[in-house]
């Protein structure tokens, strides 16, 4: 029998008359890596925020590790973690102090060794005594990722896990996450705009547009379904409300002087990559 670490059922979040997400349904199998994809305002961050308990939905049900997150989130918070370049750590505290505080919040054993190992693996040992605020964006991303891995979470939620990293370090972090998952059997849910990252890491993709799930499936299946060659083309098709091959298009007018990406595979964006 399949077991799911994350189950989202008919999830809706409204701010007054504005709907951030509407009737969202998806599940994430234990040990899988799934991506939430969508343009700005598609509802990715809202969904992640509800999953980690920072936001209460208007209606619907969210279950993580078998617990109802709206009623019993404290039963599972010690088995979850979250990484986002958009939520900071205190700037004045050193990297080590920050990780120490969070280690105590998760009531971890062997904290010093844990911090030492993570800093070594993510390549920031020499930064441990530096104030977090003095780090570069890429260095901060690695430290925030270390914070998210401190408690070796069973479910790891990530918003743009490789934002601000150079290609070499981004590649290292992706390999690290894959190894982490292989070692611990953790479930990973990420929101990302890096399509190559999604194709490499994820077994399944949930495509969102304006708060509504418009499609779901493995990256290669979505690429085939939309008659495209890359996931980025699929993303653009969905964002621009283009139909699949054979369906009528609903394309917004192109910017003046710019060619429209065609429907036969050779899109501008793909040529650029």
């Amino acid at each position, binding site marked *: 029998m399949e077991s799911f670490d994350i189950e989202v059922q008919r999830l809706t979040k409204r701010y007054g008359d504005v709907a951030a997400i509407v009737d969202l349904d998806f599940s994430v199998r234990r040990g899988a890596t799934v991506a939430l994809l969508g343009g700005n305002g598609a509802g990715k961050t809202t969904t992640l925020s509800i999953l980690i308990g920072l936001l209460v939905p208007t209606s619907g049900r969210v279950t993580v590790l078998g617990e109802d997150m709206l009623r019993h989130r404290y039963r599972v918070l010690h088995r979850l973690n979250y990484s986002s370049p958009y939520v900071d750590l205190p700037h004045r505290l*050193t990297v080590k102090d920050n990780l120490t505080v969070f280690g105590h919040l998760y009531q971890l054993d062997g904290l010093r060794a844990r911090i030492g190992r993570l800093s070594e693996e993510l390549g920031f040992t020499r930064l441990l005594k530096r104030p977090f605020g003095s780090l570069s964006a890429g260095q901060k991303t690695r430290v925030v990722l270390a914070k998210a891995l401190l*408690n*070796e979470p069973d479910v790891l939620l990530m918003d743009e896990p490789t934002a601000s990293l150079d290609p070499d370090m981004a590649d290292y972090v992706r390999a690290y996450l894959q190894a982490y998952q292989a*070692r611990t059997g953790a479930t990973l849910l990420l929101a990302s705009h890096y399509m190559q990252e999604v194709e490499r890491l994820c077994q399944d993709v949930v495509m969102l547009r304006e708060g509504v799930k418009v499609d779901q499936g493995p990256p290669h299946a979505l690429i085939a379904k939309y008659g495209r060659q890359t996931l980025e083309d699929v993303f653009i098709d969905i964002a621009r409300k283009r139909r699949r091959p054979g369906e009528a298009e609903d394309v917004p007018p192109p910017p003046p002087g710019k060619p429209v990406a065609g429907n036969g595979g050779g899109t501008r964006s793909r040529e650029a990559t």
Partner: protein
Amino acid sequence: MNGSEGVAGAARWRAHAPHSALSWQRAGAMVLRYVFLLRSSWTRIIEIIYWPTMQMVLWGLISRYVLTASTVLHQAAGLFLAAVLLWEVLFRSQMGVHTMFQEEMYARNLGHLLISPLRPIEMVSALLAVSLLRTLISAGSAALLAIPLYRFSVFTLGLPLVAFFANLMMFGWAFGLVLCALLLRFGFGAEGLAWAGIFALTPISGVYYPISTLPGWLQPAAWAFPPAYVFEGMRAVLLKGEFRADLFLAALSLNGAYLAIGVGLFLFTFGVARRRGLLLQVGE
């Protein structure tokens, strides 16, 4: 990366008591976080000591001048100094709560904290503990400095000083938590209120004069807040040498109610913030 550890290796780091409703270790982690902050910033440490010292120096000099003309003050030379030092206890205790909370907002760290197992009530405990620490440092250093400068020791108040201190701390905590709730709900738009709020109570707290000095219609408002009882009690000790247990108990009862309101409002606002998505929006 060590792939040989296997899934069982994960449990090695895990929590020992993850489901406990209140964890002193988690609350202690937050106290540690604030101690790290103070340790990293000498300007913050100086700020803790600077203002109460300045207040004490100013009012010490005023007292010296007034002493030459006032019989009442001859009888209780330290009245103003005791008042200013006790007022600092109230001011610092409320400030100790809301400035530490503001630090989290400035740092945009609330999101990380609240997805950890830290519970809001543990955050409240940490804020109150740090407030006590800051107040002891700030008011304590000013009180000690007054001894060589003016030959006045607030510690001569004896045990009543503990009663005054405890009551003012409690009211400061309650007031600080209400300010935190306002900051959480209205963001940095409420920052000005947080800094100035306590001063609105100064005129009716009877810090430097008896409550009977106030117009009759204003006196019930003064008695609705614990500081009025504390400062009347202070004057009773200094001028008449008696400890008014009735004033102490009245202040304590009111403080119980205000503290319950403060904690309740803080926790309620967290719920509102989770519904409105405010926890991810706070920042500079």
